[in-house]
C-alpha cells in the first residue's frame, strides 16, 4: 500500500502537512504508537529538509506486512558532502530558517536515530533520496 504526499519548496505554511497525513494514516491502520512516533519524526524532519533545502519533492509512505518504508525524494540540487551533512550540528540552512526553529543540523541525524535502516543517496546537481524503514 503506497501513499504519496507532495512537498512544496519554501512554503512553511503547508510544510508539515505530509507528515501530519502520514501520522493520520498510520493511526488509522492501528500501528503501534511508538512506531507512529518514530515514523512521524522521520517524515517531518524529511519534509522540512525538502521544504528548506530542495527545489521541492515528495514523501512516499509504503506499508507492507511487517514493514513501513518512508522515502523522501527531492528534485535537487543535491548534497555536496553527505558525511558532513550527517554530522550533528552541521547545517547549511540560512538565518531565516534558523529563526523558525530548524536548520540546527539535527534533521538527518534525528531521522537516522529513529529509523531501523537509513539510506541516503545524493550528488551535487542531482536529486537526493532518503529511504528509511521501520520494522512493525
Amino acid at each position, binding site marked *: 500500500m503506497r501513499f504519496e504526499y507532495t512537498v512544496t519548496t519554501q512554503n512553511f*505554511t503547508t510544510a*508539515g502537512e505530509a507528515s501530519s497525513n502520514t501520522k493520520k494514516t498510520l493511526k488509522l491502520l492501528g500501528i503501534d*504508537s511508538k512506531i507512529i512516533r518514530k515514523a*512521524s519524526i522521520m517524515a517531518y524532519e524529511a519534509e522540512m529538509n525538502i521544504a528548506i533545502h530542495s527545489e521541492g519533492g515528495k514523501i512516499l509512505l509504503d506499508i507492507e506486512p511487517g514493514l513501513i518504508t518512508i522515502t523522501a525524494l527531492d528534485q535537487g540540487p543535491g548534497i555536496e558532502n553527505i558525511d558532513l551533512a550527517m554530522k550533528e550540528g552541521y547545517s547549511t540552512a540560512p538565518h531565516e530558517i534558523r529563526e*523558525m526553529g*530548524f536548520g540546527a543540523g539535527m534533521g538527518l541525524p*534525528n531521522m537516522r536515530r529513529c529509523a531501523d535502516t537509513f539510506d541516503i543517496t545524493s550528488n551535487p546537481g542531482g536529486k537526493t533520496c532518503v529511504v528509511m524503514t521501520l520494522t512493525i
Partner: protein
Amino acid sequence: MELREIIELLDCDILNTSFELNRNYEKAFGSDLMSDVLAFIHDETTVLITGLVNQQVIRTAEMIDLKLIVFVRGKVPADEVVELADNQGITLLSTKASMFDAAGILFEKGLRGID
C-alpha cells in the same frame, strides 16, 4: 502538576479553546530548536516552553503528541497557528515571563526536566 496550576504560577493567558484544567503534566522542556524537541522529548506529559510562535511549533508538537505549549515573553501566535493547535487538541498559553524565569518557577513547584 495540573494545567490550572501552570496557568496560575505563570499568570498565563489561555489562547485557545483546547484545554482541560485538570490535565496533568509531569515534565517540561524549554527550547527554540524544534529538532531538539523532536529528538529529546519522549513523554506526552511534557510541557513545551518556547519563544517561537510559528506553525512549525504546532506541527512539531503534533508529531510527538505534546498537549501543551507555553509561549514566553508575552508572545502570541497568529490566528491560523492558534486554529491549527485547536484542530490538534493542543493547549496554547502565553506568559510574560522569560523562558528562564518560566522554567525556574515551574521547577521550583515540582516540574522536572526530561530524563
